[in-house]
């Protein structure tokens, strides 16, 4: 590798700055008292405290799963701060928001105020665990859309939250979902009423700030009959050497003919080139296509985190419902990713598409793990899966673990996977045309991921393309 390439590959984490802001934290450790504290700090109703405690008691009986193809030191759950919030001050307008905080967002390029208006994006900003500012709320409220933090939703729309919270990912679903259900502090809530097409892309920027504070967001999106929404989630995190656990739960519910599109660009701190530090991203994301002809589409670009472990899934319960999963997962240095999707076909004529692109460079390990399950009643179900891997450098690994379970003879399931590298002849061809190695690699990678990028909303597609270019240029040489 030439020195220029070295520099590019080893480019330090751009978003590695840290905001000094007063935070109010709960003491380290997890117990029923911590949970009661979180619940009382957030003035939660009794049922939610019960929900949390039930989840916690169930969590205590569970064992940490070991099946994923990732390695990490044992997590000490008593060494985590479960609640940390910027000190509460009532703010009347954006001007009152802590300027330090605004500067952080500026550095991250979060469009707010006029920038938000220009970009046409409503941002529900999560800074550590509490929502600080929400824009566009009124405009959305006019058409009946609720877009707020989950804490606000618990306060203002308790019936809706109670009806849907935990309905897709039950509190005891898995180890980290149970943990999240017990201690979640904030997240977003979106409700699109009957027949409403959300007039803009909804977006949340997550950001982990206080050292050692685990983030346990909870996102709940409900689209009623004939409603549609596109939701964007983007992530960056400051540079720390202590691993930070992130165990979020995202639940999507689509009723009859509703359409939910959920896009993620994840670029959390991945640890340094020796694999020190970085975020542990253990997330449960699941969508329920409850109604007939409903549709849920997941698009993700995973480039950050020391360990990514998530399977955005679709339960295709309604007849004729559609599930989609488009993913690009890139790992470099010592990153590990075990990601994929589950498509569970229960209704008749349900269809799903899986397109997964894994790129592994450095000494990283990238696994696709997916499940396509066709239930006995899912007559006429159809699935197409394609998982392609690209290896850069001889020390990385790419794995595919697709589970296919079919219980209905009228189903058609297809799975294809390939592994390849950037060929010398391809690079030669580019160079011959006067295009340098750097640019050629970037172009090849972007071509490799094209089918996924096409699914991303415009701004994200641009960001994702840049991200991959930044992370990978020069890895070949």
């Amino acid at each position, binding site marked *: 590798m030439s020195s220029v390439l070295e520099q590019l590959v080893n480019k330090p984490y751009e978003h590695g700055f840290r905001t000094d802001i007063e935070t109010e934290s709960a003491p380290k450790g997890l117990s029923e008292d911590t949970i009661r504290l979180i619940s009382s700090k957030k003035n939660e109703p009794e049922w939610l405290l019960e929900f949390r405690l039930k989840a916690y008691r169930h969590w205590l009986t569970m064992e940490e799963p070991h099946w994923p193809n990732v390695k990490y030191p044992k997590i000490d759950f008593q060494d985590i701060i479960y609640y940390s919030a910027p000190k509460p001050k009532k703010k009347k307008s954006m001007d009152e928001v802590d300027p330090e905080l605004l500067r952080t967002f500026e550095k991250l390029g979060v469009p707010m105020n006029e920038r938000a208006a220009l970009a046409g994006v409503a941002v529900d900003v999560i800074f550590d665990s509490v929502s600080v500012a929400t824009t566009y709320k009124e405009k959305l409220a006019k058409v009946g859309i609720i877009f707020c933090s989950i804490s606000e939703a618990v306060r203002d729309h308790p019936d809706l939250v109670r009806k849907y919270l935990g309905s897709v990912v039950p509190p005891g679903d898995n180890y980290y979902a149970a943990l999240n259900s017990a201690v979640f502090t904030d997240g977003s809530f979106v409700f699109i009423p009957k027949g409403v097409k959300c007039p803009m892309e909804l977006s949340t920027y997550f950001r982990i700030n206080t050292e050692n504070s685990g983030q346990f967001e909870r996102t709940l999106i409900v689209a009623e009959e004939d409603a549609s929404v596109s939701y964007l989630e983007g992530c960056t995190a400051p540079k720390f050497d202590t691993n930070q656990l992130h165990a979020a739960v995202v639940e999507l519910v689509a009723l009859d003919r509703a359409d939910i599109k959920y896009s993620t660009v994840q670029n959390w701190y991945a640890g340094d080139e020796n694999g020190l530090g970085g975020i542990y991203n253990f997330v449960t994301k699941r969508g329920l296509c409850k109604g007939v002809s409903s549709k849920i589409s997941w698009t993700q670009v995973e480039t950050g985190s020391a360990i990514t472990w998530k399977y955005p899934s679709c339960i295709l319960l309604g007849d004729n419902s559609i599930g989609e999963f488009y993913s690009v997962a890139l790992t470099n240095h010592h990153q590990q990713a075990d990601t994929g999707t589950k498509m569970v076909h229960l209704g008749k004529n349900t269809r799903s598409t899986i397109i997964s692109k894994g790129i592994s460079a450095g000494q990283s390990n990238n696994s696709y793990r997916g499940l396509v399950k066709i239930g006995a009643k899912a007559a006429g179900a159809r699935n197409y899966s394609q998982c392609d891997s690209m*290896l850069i450098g001889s020390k990385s690994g790419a*794995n595919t*673990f697709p589970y296919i379970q*079919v219980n209905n*003879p009228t189903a058609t*399931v297809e799975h294809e*996977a390939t592994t390849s590298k950037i060929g010398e002849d391809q690079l030669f061809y580019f160079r011959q045309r006067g295009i340098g190695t750097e640019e050629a690699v970037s172009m090849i990678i972007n071509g490799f991921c094209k089918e996924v990028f096409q699914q991303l909303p415009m701004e994200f597609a641009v960001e994702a393309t840049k991200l991959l270019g930044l992370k990978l240029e020069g890895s070949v040489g």
Partner: protein
Amino acid sequence: MTTAVHPYVDALLTGTRDLPTSPHGWLNERRGLALERANALSVPTTRDEEWRFTDLTQLTRLQLRAPGAPAEIAPEAVLPYIVPEAGSRIVFVDGVFVPQLSSTASAVSGVRVAPLATALKTDAGRLEPHLARLAGFEQNVFVALNTAHLRDGAVVVISKGQICEKPVHILHIATQAGTAAYPRCVVIAEAGAECTVVEEYQAMSEDAYLTNAVTEIAVAARARVRHIKLQCENARAFHIASCAVVVAKDASYTSHTVSLGARLSRYDLSVALNGEGAFAQMDGLALISGRQLADTHTLIDHTQPNGRSAQLHKTIVGGAAHAVFNGKIFVRPGAQLTDSSQQSRNLLLSDKATVDTKPQLEIFADDVKCAHGATVGQLDAEQLFYLRSRGLTETVARNLLTYAFGASVIERIPVRSIVERLERAVMAQTGAAA
């Protein structure tokens, strides 16, 4: 003597403790180690990832004993299984060599087909590096059980540079209900040697029994081994088999596995491509109906550069049958320029039929070409319509298409009489399965 952790394993180990010691110390040692492992291991449950879809509860409910002395079988009784092309035949009844039914004399001097006892006299030095060593029993309770019981087996040795044109037929017949037999086959092809081995399992009984088979195949540099495995156990039987293959530099291993019988069958085939430029091709066909379960686990381990492997596994599943396939491809660090492809094709014929398939790639080298694919589906309505428009009845059309689906595996088998036999079997069974 210690007793096994698992009571079921303990029961199956009855008798191993009084096996006569072999004059070969290394063999006693391996049997001892296997016994130790069998004592420590449990029968896998569906909580074990490798056995997730195959529930052995039914097997553990069976009270199995070691087979008694086999009843005499008239030579006419084995006529239907005779492979006319074969140059030699070695027959085992309930795991025990039966010289009367066998014809092991070979016209070619470099080809030796013999029961284990004889082979240990002539080829002990050749057996030692492979026997009870290729098939690992550390983590596999069934291989451990088989190795602990190791007393008899079929040994095929092809000397350096010898080309054995006529297939070698190894026939295992189960006759006693309620017993567990432990057949073992060892095939050693020395440098540049060539041979075709047919490993066949048949039953002359209607009731449940267990065949716990282990096969070990060593293919030395530039050698070629073609391995045909036919599993035609009876409909109540349990067939659990492991086959471990090592392939050296520029050598080739081709396997054709056809599973038709058994209430529950499991086949673990692992091929290690240990030499540069080694090649493996693995074809599989499982044709099952009723309440049968056929589980195939394969592993292709590319450890050296320039290896090639190709796999085609097909299942035809009717009734309430259940087919399981798990195909792993490993490409180790340094195994550059590996070219590997794997296809899992599954045909469901009825509402209650189930398929679980998992083609799996684990790649740790960057300059490789690997692809896998899996499909599950039913017969194509348009193709059926086409055939019916040509005057074929629905049943005939379905049978023809089903047969055609399986034919791509069957027709590649290099022994003509077996192809014909399987064609008839598949035609008969597809009629029943639909």
